[in-house]
């Protein structure tokens, strides 16, 4: 998420390596080609001021020339409608501040779908920059019976053309050789003649593209009969939805079931590190404070967050896989009508789905929604989706307070009560997201009707393992960076607040009773006692706003420091004896809405470009959390759970 990395990377040696920008339609295999060329030598950051991902990398040509590559967001035209497309336009025109104008445009086209690509190339020629056209997925095109006259195509377009197969090991050889030749003798950039055209200009450009297409390409009668047959099932109005639900069910099952062994291993690793610290440092004196800092603050804090890495990776594996397969656009198609009922756009489905992992990538993914109002509505409700940071809160409280038994006899014996409560919490999040969206779109913004839903459905294709691996690796890096910075510093702060000042000599109460944490918790307690929260919970909520999962860690710190016991497994038991059922249920209800973490608020501010929407989002969720916890607590007390 660093914004400091916008300056071009320094060249390895001698003259600066030339910049090559990858441009193309969405779904043309551009990112796969970028991954094939750069491998692990790539870096993802953001453009300054906007959260558009800036992907840069390096590669070597056949002749040993170093090239810097920049992967631009996919687009159908240089006329920009979204922040993503604006970045592409400004970079190729050399207009983006702080960005070097590319020396060469590497235009990537899906060889099985050249029609929109050729129109984009005609437009790109007006930028005056040298262009190399890579016909990607040539293997699939040949297999399906396309015959493309490369020489004629190059002549008609007036640009160099090569073939490429991004997902094969040898598939980029011709491209690299050609790149070498072109970079050795780069012409000076011509003048920019591009300007935004009206409908007439688009028609004329497409007519010219169609003429070239007819002259150079012999297409099979039906180039995507396979996709059509699959869609007959997957886009079926009824079965399609059933299959979508089944995929989502499998996904969540996997997140919970598959991740357990890895999570246990990470947990065990951090426990062992904690024990090692205890063995090395004495308990008493100034070194005792250091021991407490290293064990409870550093190791405990980082461990409590890193333990979610397996779940996040499994969720992203599914999302990346579905995206690469071409299924995500189908999910949007299937959900459009249903989400439209709540005033949401079909394209909001993918951001909301990502928000189950974490609201941050979810909110960033709303960039695909063109209309500002549709996008804002999605951003406001995305944090209501149960993110993985809430999972530890839910599992802790459910394990401690909800009996682990079947709901009933017969067919109901298959339904576990704990699982049912978990499902209920997820369902409550989704229901309220839809409800809030209805309020926003149907009551507040009646004058701004929903944008049209227009989305290309790409042909299905097999994903490449290498692409998936690179994508997952980048997600892991983003998460680790966050764990290592924001969350770690918050954990250190919490440790400080709950350990300082030290208890006076001869103190009889547990040490934490004398700390700043206790003072803050007691100060906030009167406001939160109507919802059943004691001062320990009141205290844990504050760092919980830095990152939700920290609330569990800080409850652990508060109670383990207080009781002198250190195993986290015992935390549930400790809570079960200290909290009433009503308090536990109110705590769960609070966390369905839990005012989002600081990092999410930061992303909302950046994505909406204003502090206002960040405050609106924080305020409405805080109010809902308080009301929900209040109602839950009072009803539970009346029912005798107090």
């Amino acid at each position, binding site marked *: 998420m660093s914004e400091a990395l916008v300056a071009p990377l320094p060249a390895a040696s001698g003259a600066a390596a030339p910049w090559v920008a990858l441009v193309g339609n969405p779904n043309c295999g551009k990112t796969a080609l970028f991954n094939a060329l750069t491998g692990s030598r790539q870096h993802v950051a953001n453009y300054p001021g906007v959260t558009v991902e800036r992907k840069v990398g390096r590669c070597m040509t056949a002749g040993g020339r170093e090239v810097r590559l920049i992967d631009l967001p996919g687009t*159908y*035209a240089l*006329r920009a409608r979204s922040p993503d497309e604006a970045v592409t336009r400004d970079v190729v025109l050399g207009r983006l501040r702080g960005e070097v104008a590319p020396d060469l445009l590497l235009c990537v086209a899906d060889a099985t*779908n050249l*029609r*929109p690509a050729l*129109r984009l190339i005609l437009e790109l020629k007006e930028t005056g920059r040298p262009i190399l056209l890579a016909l990607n997925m040539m293997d699939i095109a040949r297999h399906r019976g396309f015959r493309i006259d490369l020489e004629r195509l190059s002549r008609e377009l007036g640009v160099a053309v090569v073939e490429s197969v991004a997902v094969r090991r040898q598939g980029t050889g011709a491209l690299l050789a050609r790149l070498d030749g072109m970079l050795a003798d780069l012409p000076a950039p011509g003048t920019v003649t591009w300007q935004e055209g*009206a*409908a007439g200009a*688009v*028609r004329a450009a*497409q*007519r010219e593209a*169609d003429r070239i297409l007819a002259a150079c390409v012999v*297409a099979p009668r039906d*180039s*995507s009969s396979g*996709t*059509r047959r699959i*869609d*007959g099932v997957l*886009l*079926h*109005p*009824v079965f399609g*939805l059933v299959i979508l639900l089944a995929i989502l069910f499998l996904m969540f099952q996997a997140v919970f079931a598959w991740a357990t062994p890895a999570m246990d291993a990470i947990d065990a690793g951090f426990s062992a590190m904690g024990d090692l610290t205890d063995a090395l440092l004495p308990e008493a004196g100034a070194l005792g404070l250091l021991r407490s800092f290293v064990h409870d603050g550093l190791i405990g804090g980082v461990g409590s967050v890193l333990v979610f890495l397996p779940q996040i990776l499994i969720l992203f594996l599914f999302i990346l896989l579905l995206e690469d397969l071409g299924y995500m*656009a189908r999910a*949007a*198609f*299937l959900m*459009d*009508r*249903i989400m439209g009922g709540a005033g949401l756009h*079909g394209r909001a489905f993918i951001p909301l789905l990502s928000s189950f992992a974490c609201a941050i990538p979810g909110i960033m993914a709303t960039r695909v929604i063109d*209309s500002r109002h549709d996008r804002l509505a999605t951003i406001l409700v995305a944090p209501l989706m149960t993110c993985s940071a809430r999972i530890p809160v839910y599992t802790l409280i459910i394990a401690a307070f909800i009996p682990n038994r079947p709901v009933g006899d017969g067919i109901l014996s298959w339904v576990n009560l704990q699982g049912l409560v978990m499902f209920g919490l997820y369902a409550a999040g989704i229901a309220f997201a839809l409800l809030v969206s209805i309020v926003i779109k149907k009551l507040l913004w009646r004058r*701004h*009707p*929903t*944008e*049209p*839903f*227009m*989305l*290309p*459905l*790409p*042909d299905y294709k097999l994903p490449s393992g290498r692409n998936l691996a690179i994508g997952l690796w980048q997600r892991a890096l983003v998460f680790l960076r966050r764990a290592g910075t924001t969350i770690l510093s918050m954990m250190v702060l919490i440790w400080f607040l709950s350990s300082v000042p030290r208890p006076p000599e001869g103190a009889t109460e547990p040490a934490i009773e004398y700390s700043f944490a206790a003072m803050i918790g007691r100060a906030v307690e009167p406001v939160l006692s109507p919802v059943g929260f004691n001062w320990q919970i009141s205290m844990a909520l504050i760092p919980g706003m830095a990152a939700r999962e920290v609330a569990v860690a800080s409850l652990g710190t508060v109670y383990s420091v207080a009781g002198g016991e250190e195993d986290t497994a015992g935390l549930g038991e400790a809570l079960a004896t200290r909290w009433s059922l009503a308090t536990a249920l109110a705590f769960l209800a609070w966390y369905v809405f839990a005012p989002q973490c600081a990092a999410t608020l930061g992303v909302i501010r950046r994505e909406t470009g204003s502090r206002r929407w960040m405050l609106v989002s924080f305020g409405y969720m805080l109010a809902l959390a308080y009301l929900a916890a209040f109602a839950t607590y009072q009803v539970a007390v009346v029912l005798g759970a107090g």
Partner: protein
Amino acid sequence: MSSTSLSATDGQAADLGALPVGFQGRIRAIQVDAGTSGPLPGPELERRLLELGFTEGAPVEILHQGLFRDPIAVRVAGTTVALRRREARAVLVEPA
């Protein structure tokens, strides 16, 4: 001229938004009026349709439709595009 008069009278041309799955034909015109453009200014909808490949003369086929008939998936000149019937009404077509 308006799209409604065409589809109602000559029987040759119709708007894509009103047609069933399985329809095959050719695009005769892109015609945006108040009934189709909705939240977008007319010229903007026209440009977006053109950019997605809905140009005069292009072959079209309605492949699939969602629950309650909406949205529809349309094959247009070798590309598949999903859109709502409301916007598809701006695409005037004639049967193949």
